[in-house]
């Protein structure tokens, strides 16, 4: 196992983004996470997009979906599960 580097990597940040947005990161991890955001604008964009996605989907109700769209999504997911890895 490689030694932990001083700074969080982008891959590590992506793993932690849900906990960050749920304010569930322990203190030191939170600090490393926010230090990374200071210098990495692509990760800032990623966190902003995740926050916006959660906000938007959180406001969405099943009845808001067009019935045709719901069928299309279900068909897509069924096909996805059946596709080769």
């Amino acid at each position, binding site marked *: 196992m490689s030694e932990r580097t001083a700074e969080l990597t982008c891959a590590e940040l992506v793993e932690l983004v849900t906990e960050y947005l749920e304010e569930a990161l322990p203190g030191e991890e939170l600090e490393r996470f926010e230090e990374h955001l200071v210098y990495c*604008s692509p990760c800032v964009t990623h966190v902003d997009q995740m926050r916006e996605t959660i906000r938007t989907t959180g406001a969405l109700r099943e009845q808001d979906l067009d019935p045709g769209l719901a069928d299309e999504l279900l068909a897509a997911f069924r096909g996805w599960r059946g596709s080769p890895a």
Partner: protein
Amino acid sequence: MKALKFLLDGSVGPFSGFAWTGGEHGEPGPWVEAEGDVTCKRGVHACAPADLPYWLQDELWEVELRGPVVRGRHKLVAPSGRLLRRVEAWDAAARAAFADACLARAGELVRRQPEADGYLADLERFQPHVGPAAIASLAARAAEAVEGRAGYEAERAAQADWLAGRLGLERGVAA
């Protein structure tokens, strides 16, 4: 306790989105109180001069912290704080000079450790396109790659020393 705080343009907290006010014309701003118990996660955040390279943003402010201060790895957290004055010396010229100084130290690193030349090339390539925080991080990671954690810490310390000298920061800040 006096301390330092970086904010985005318009005196906005980079993570909280909180819009700070005051601290102009020599008048302190209003006290801002944190909600709930202060921990290293929750409260008014600031830092000491040695921590500055980790938090570089558009505006630098001298702040006053009130109440018991919790020390994080590279930050200070207090129950309340207020803006005292903007550090005007942290301007576009200082930001550019800071990035140049990081690049110069990376050049010295390559003279000591020629295998770091790829990092120096990255720094030179990125410098016109990214801010000083990214350059500072790249320089520190270059030092870490060839000299280990001690190299990383030494580069960050050199960045802090450069900032304290250029910005004329008071020795008593966050002491």
